């Protein structure tokens, strides 16, 4: 009996695949489809502050959410016309390739292997690792931490590469790994660690929520570009989203981008220079 089940499921897969080819062949431009639909469908996360998360009232907020609203404003002249599909980070690529979403903006690191499966837009943020210190603590900045050598303990989120990552910035520091973010910050608060190494965006958000208690050691490393992604094979749609993001970074929508940046990272992004457009 299992043999027959296998034949049946293989048959179903073959039918599904052939129908998929027909479906993609008859699809016309995504830009027209989105305009006709009257709303933009964006895949994003709901568990990762400050990118996409739920505020206390259960509302989806974050930098990625604001970026999606900027793109919707470009499409419909109305930033509210977005439907968010919340997805786990594993679902980012499949939800794009199967057309469940028009685009995904979800703290997605641009890598060459991923670019073989989806089309990345231009980056809208560069993530990195930064060091959080207690304000008025023993060490004032990265130079002081580095000078202290093996006398420094750094708390970090548990990760295969965590030890190497910290040693890139502080070669002799002792590394304490924790299995959740709360414990990592707690180690810093209780003095078990002298610094906490975490994503620059998380650090900024944490500092914004706890004003005047912490300082950034002023050193960032491990660059990763964050970009939105769309399905491959539709140059007009990719170009539209790229244009919308570019104008948010350096053009007419810079004001909205700046507001979002200040809201979630607590600092002002560099203003676009007038004149030469790069």
């Amino acid at each position, binding site marked *: 009996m299992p043999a027959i*089940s296998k034949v049946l499921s293989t048959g179903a897969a073959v039918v599904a695949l052939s129908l998929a080819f027909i479906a993609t062949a008859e699809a016309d431009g995504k830009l027209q489809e989105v305009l006709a639909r009257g709303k933009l469908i964006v895949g994003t996360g709901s*568990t990762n502050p400050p990118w996409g998360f739920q505020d206390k009232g259960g509302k989806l907020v974050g930098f990625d959410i604001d970026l999606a609203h900027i793109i919707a404003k470009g499409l419909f002249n109305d930033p509210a016309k977005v439907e968010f599909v919340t997805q786990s980070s594993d679902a980012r690529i499949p939800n794009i390739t199967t057309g*469940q979403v028009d685009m995904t903006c979800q703290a997605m690191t641009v890598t060459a292997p991923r670019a073989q499966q989806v089309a990345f837009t231009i980056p809208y943020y560069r993530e990195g690792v930064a060091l959080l210190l207690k304000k008025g603590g023993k060490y004032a900045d990265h130079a002081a931490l580095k000078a202290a050598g093996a006398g420094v303990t750094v708390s970090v989120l548990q990760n295969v590469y965590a030890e190497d990552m910290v040693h890139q910035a502080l070669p002799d520091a002792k590394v304490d790994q924790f299995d*959740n973010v709360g414990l990592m910050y707690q180690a810093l608060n209780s003095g078990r660690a002298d610094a906490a190494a975490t994503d620059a965006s998380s650090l900024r958000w944490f500092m914004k929520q706890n004003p005047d208690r912490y300082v950034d050691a002023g050193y960032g490393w491990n660059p990763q570009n964050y970009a939105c992604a769309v399905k491959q094979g539709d140059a007009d749609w990719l170009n539209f989203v790229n244009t919308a993001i570019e104008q948010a970074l350096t053009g007419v929508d810079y004001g909205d981008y700046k507001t979002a940046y200040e809201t979630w990272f607590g600092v002002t992004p560099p203003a676009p220079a007038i004149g030469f457009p790069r």
Partner: protein
Amino acid sequence: MDDLITEAWDARDVILGGLLQTLSISALAIVLGTLLGVLVGVALVYGAWPLRLAARAYADVMRGTPVLVLVLAAFYMPAVLGLHLQPFAAGVLALTLFCGAHIGELIRGALGSIPRGQTEAAKAVGLTFFGVLAHVLLPQALRSLLPPWINTCVEMVKASTLLSVIGVGELLLRTQEIIGRNFMTLQFYLLVGALYLVVNFAIEQAGKALERRVAFR
């Protein structure tokens, strides 16, 4: 502890909303899955061979596949065909298909355990096939069916947590979202663990009460 109480109180609407989603998904999957299961079970025992073969293939594929794979398949396979199911609908579909296969097997076992003489006697007094099923076989099957059926219901509530993967805002995903905001990992997982326990305990108690009602007196 004070922190947990404050944070849990702040998040009460979100937690309740998640619990409501979990309950409605589980209830839908159980009701639809049970209806499907009765059809599958009857087809497995009395169907003509092509129908029996189809029911057998369905039950074997569904029971032999991890629920997580079914959930992902229900979400992505229709999308490939151009049919975009909402995560909620895809999730209910996956759990219903899974539930239907299990209950189909339960019904097959329960029907198979009733002596043949019963069917023969019922036919001898002139009942039609559906009459035999409705008045003689299924009522008797119900007694041996109830305990494993309650067990399947509890399994469905637990399986509903897997829908967090496709973005259904059920209790587990809502909890992960709360933890993403306040970093109180252990405390909130324990809290919702307790909520799942309460729900499943209630189902088991309701099941026991039901068993007592239909027991031989």
